[in-house]
């Protein structure tokens, strides 16, 4: 079984979000980058498949050379090999098109991406890959098992969950639950050493139309200070929620 895990390289959750060049670009100054949390859950699930069912795990990222430490971290966690597609990830479709090409040429059975990334929160890439390749697609996946070519999975739905069945090859939009946070792997010394010897292949991008572009960023307007209400005056809170905020 061949598994491809799509890794998005995103600012750490506590990063300060600022913009430069007339608010047209994200300011990377002092920002720590990490594996996108939803992808990290997927990577750990892939490593389980590797350990329990003998799968090979490849990780892939569309990005410049600065994303290689993130791919090396994924190798240190246990992926067998890594691919970097040497391009700036301009929009969801562009990224999906690059990944679809890798998937087609590599004959992967399972492709795990995060259901969304923490930077642009687009939630577009896994569905777009599935759309381009015509593969079966499971979004918001919280559990997956594979027997032969049969796939059983659990998905989150509004107000509950559902169990679905499908067949390989399949594209997954994964999230927490596919493994739990306590099961995430931290690279150990041996992993870090062996990661250095694992293959990191660099591919040049294929042509893809750029359908959308980010032209400008804005920060939310500064908030006015909290109105404190005394704990002995709950009627005042009800009054404010009813007459001022008009939410009850």
């Amino acid at each position, binding site marked *: 079984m061949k598994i491809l895990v799509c890794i998005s390289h995103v600012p750490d*959750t*506590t990063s300060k*979000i600022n913009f430069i060049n007339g608010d047209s670009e994200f300011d990377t100054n002092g920002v720590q980058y990490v594996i996108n*949390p*939803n992808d990290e859950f997927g990577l750990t699930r892939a490593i389980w498949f590797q350990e329990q069912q003998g799968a090979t795990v490849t990780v892939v990222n569309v990005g410049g050379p600065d994303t290689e430490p993130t791919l090396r971290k994924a190798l240190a966690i246990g992926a067998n090999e890594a691919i970097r597609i040497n391009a700036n990830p301009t929009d969801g*479709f562009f990224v999906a098109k690059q990944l679809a090409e890798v998937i087609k040429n590599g004959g992967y059975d399972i492709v795990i991406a995060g259901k969304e990334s923490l*930077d*642009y*929160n*687009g*939630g*577009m*890439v*896994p*569905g*777009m890959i*599935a*759309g*381009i390749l015509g593969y*079966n*697609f*499971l*979004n*918001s996946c919280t559990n997956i098992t594979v027997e032969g070519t049969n796939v*059983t999975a659990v998905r*989150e*739905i*509004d*107000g*509950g969950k*559902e*169990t*679905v*069945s*499908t067949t390989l090859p399949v594209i997954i939009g994964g999230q*927490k*639950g596919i493994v739990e946070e306590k099961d995430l792997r931290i690279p150990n010394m041996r992993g870090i050493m062996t990661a250095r010897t694992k293959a990191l292949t660099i591919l040049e991008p294929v042509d893809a*139309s750029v*359908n*959308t572009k*980010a*032209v*400008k*960023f*804005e920060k*939310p307007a500064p908030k006015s200070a*909290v*109105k*404190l*209400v*005394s*704990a002995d005056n*709950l009627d005042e*809170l*009800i009054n404010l*929620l*009813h007459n001022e*905020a008009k*939410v*009850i």
Partner: protein
Amino acid sequence: MSILIYAESAEGKFKKVALELASYAKKVAESLGTTVTAVTVNAGDVSELSKYGVDKVLKVANDKLAGFTAKAYADVIKQAAQKEGAKVVLLSSTTDSIYLSSLVAVALEAGFASNVVGLPVSTSPFQVKRNAFSNKAFNITEINTDVKVLALAKNSYGIFENASTLTEEDFNPTIGDADFGVKVVSVEKGSGKVSIADADIVVSAGRGLKGPENWGMVEELASVLGAATACSKPVSDLGWRPHGEHVGQTGKPVATNLYIAIGISGAIQHIAGINSSKVKVVINSDPEAPFFKVADYGIVGDAFEIIPQLTAKLKAFKEQQS
């Protein structure tokens, strides 16, 4: 050319997000000088859509589509868009619609913007404002393709009445076996209470509540307000509450009208999930809790004393209102 919306329904009733989407679509249609067509799947009576500005409904009635299947539904929307020559296709941000929308975008070779939070900033070039960086910023995105797909973030526009004369038309798109590669085996819905996805008000509690045995008072407060309950991550990690209730960056985002946070410190990862809620009330015993910095209203005090009193007072207030 028209604008096409996918109006989601459940058990024959339109979801609130569908009415918000219709309201939004009407406004976009006015600025583009066109009309709004909605496509519905097994929705039954569709007349309600005329209140919110929809001019025409393409009604799909098909037993094969009784359960939600992303690929088949995407195929329906694609064919409806092509039939109408729609240049703008609008979806909402329910879990189902998010699942669908990128498939629809690829099928229509359309540029796609998700998490859209308001009317287009400009229609030529076509630019929309979206949430980015876990709601810590906005991004203005320009779409350059002929056909554009947008997914509207929940509660970002509102529901506005705008009466129209509605034409209804039966629509029979072609759906083949290839659309059913994913089969639903079973569905488990939470018990009859309000789900976070549908709620206008969410009452959320954190580790400050000390243990699962104390959630009774949270549920009571929620029930008086017709609200859904939610929690912080440690609470679900500890198994006090189900995972589906965990709100935040790694949990669910909530964009409600009112978010009440009880005994939650307000860590940045939690705030990331609630930033787009309109009004935030914080109840915390620690006046230094970071949550007060993002709250609209706050009470410094002990939840165990405040919540039962607040519930009783709200109950009286509601009775007086009705």
